[in-house]
């Protein structure tokens, strides 16, 4: 039986292969630098600034973050597939409030989409997004007036957020991006000893990184001492020491992929605009012109 495991594992990966195959060379997600990212050279400086000022005002007044991206094409993906990938990368909207919106225009594909974050699906249901796409953007895009269509769409979105249906939209209490505690996040109320354990494990991992196995032993020693203090017995001390010793290895193993935790690297430029950690679930509407 044992020797069958590698084979089964191979089969499993084979079964996953189609997943990777379909993802052949998708368009790379552009870096988020400003509220308006134009990869097609369509918007002139004046219109671009007008749009940015408008979007900035929306965030100031309503708390909602809106980002605009113009790009030549999303092929081979559909605009919806690209859009959700973009949304997952940019994380527009504030964490917890999820009040982000992305307007995407694929110019050569003649397609556009409004991607609506979870928190705004009440204020901007799909039908409203579709109307904005079909009635505000498409007619102007047909005439080649991209700036006008985008500005009009942004105004319509603001009205929808501010409008009578605004009950679902969170009040603008997080204008500066103070993260709201996510309801399902890891930041709940842990008992105090969990914090201690966490600190110990992190410390053990660091010691192990610095000193190797000696570091683990050192951490185990500290853990054992703490265990003795808490449990008041040698058994408790031994258990705690063993626990810390083992966990120091676990921590090291997971340390490799733990690097991407913090996402706030806005050190590149002062005017840099960054998403606040909003999440998206595929709401919104697409259209063409």
């Amino acid at each position, binding site marked *: 039986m044992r020797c069958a495991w590698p084979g089964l594992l191979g089969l499993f990966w084979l079964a996953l292969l189609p997943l990777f195959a379909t993802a052949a060379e998708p368009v790379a997600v552009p870096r988020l630098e400003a509220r308006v990212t134009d990869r097609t050279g369509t918007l002139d400086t004046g219109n671009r600034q007008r749009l940015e000022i408008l979007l900035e005002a929306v965030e100031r007044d309503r708390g909602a973050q809106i980002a605009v991206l113009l790009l030549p094409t999303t092929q081979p993906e559909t605009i919806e597939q690209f859009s959700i990938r973009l949304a997952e990368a940019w994380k527009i909207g504030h964490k917890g409030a999820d009040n982000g919106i992305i307007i995407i225009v694929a110019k050569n594909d003649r397609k556009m989409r409004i991607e609506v974050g979870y928190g705004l699906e009440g204020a901007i249901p799909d039908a409203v997004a*579709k109307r904005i796409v079909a009635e505000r953007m498409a007619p102007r895009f047909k005439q080649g007036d991209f700036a006008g269509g985008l500005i009009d769409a942004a105004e319509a979105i603001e009205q929808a957020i501010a409008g009578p249906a605004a009950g679902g939209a969170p009040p603008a209490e997080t204008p500066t991006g103070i993260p709201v505690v996510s309801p399902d996040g890891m930041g709940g109320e842990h008992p105090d000893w969990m914090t201690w354990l966490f600190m110990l494990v992190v410390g053990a991992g660091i010691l192990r990184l610095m000193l190797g196995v000696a570091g683990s032993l050192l951490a185990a020693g500290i853990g054992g001492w703490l265990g003795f203090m808490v449990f008041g017995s040698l058994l*408790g001390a031994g258990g705690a020491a063993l626990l810390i010793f*083992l966990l120091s290895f676990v921590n090291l193993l997971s340390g490799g992929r733990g690097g991407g935790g913090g996402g706030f690297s806005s050190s590149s430029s002062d005017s840099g605009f960054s998403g606040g950690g909003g999440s998206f679930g595929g709401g919104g509407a697409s259209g063409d012109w």
Partner: protein
Amino acid sequence: MRMRLLAVLTFAATLLSGCGYNQIQINDEAVNAAWSEVLNQYKRRADLIPNLVSVVQGYASHEKEVLTRVTEARANVAGIKATPELVNDPAAFAKFQKAQGDLGGALSRLLAVAENYPQLKADTNFRDLQAQVEGTENRITVARNRYIKSVQEYNVSVRTFPNSLTASVMGWQTKANFTVEDEKAISAPPAIKFDTPAAKPAPSAPSY
């Protein structure tokens, strides 16, 4: 005595957490959450159908075949209890999948047929519903993709080495994932026919 038992338990817990017990638990919970979102969006789609059917009926009442097919598919979907345990039962999962796939197919046919009725297409109510159905289909795609990713992560965590021992001790199995239901139908090139009259499809003609 009690202390010794405690020590043994601590030791066991230590071993398990060292061997991925917690990781598997975390991944398992992630799969559950992703699955709930899939169910949520499927339900949202099912809820849209009665309105859609009644609007289409108002303009295209003689499209009986398409309409009944949607209604039947919806009834089939409603007949399957979508419990979280479904994820752990590949056969039931496949059945559920097929029912949802049928509903998706029937629904897209209904929307395709609607293209033939300019008045229906101009109806604001219909357009809103259409936008909602499209949006929901997209949400379903997103939710399914996230589910696929979370199951992949879970299955890997159950099958890779130190964890696999923990999993086999605890009796945890890998979870069922989505597949393309009709692989053959998709890989075959679509048959294009130009001779069917667009305006009045025969009501009793077998589709496809």
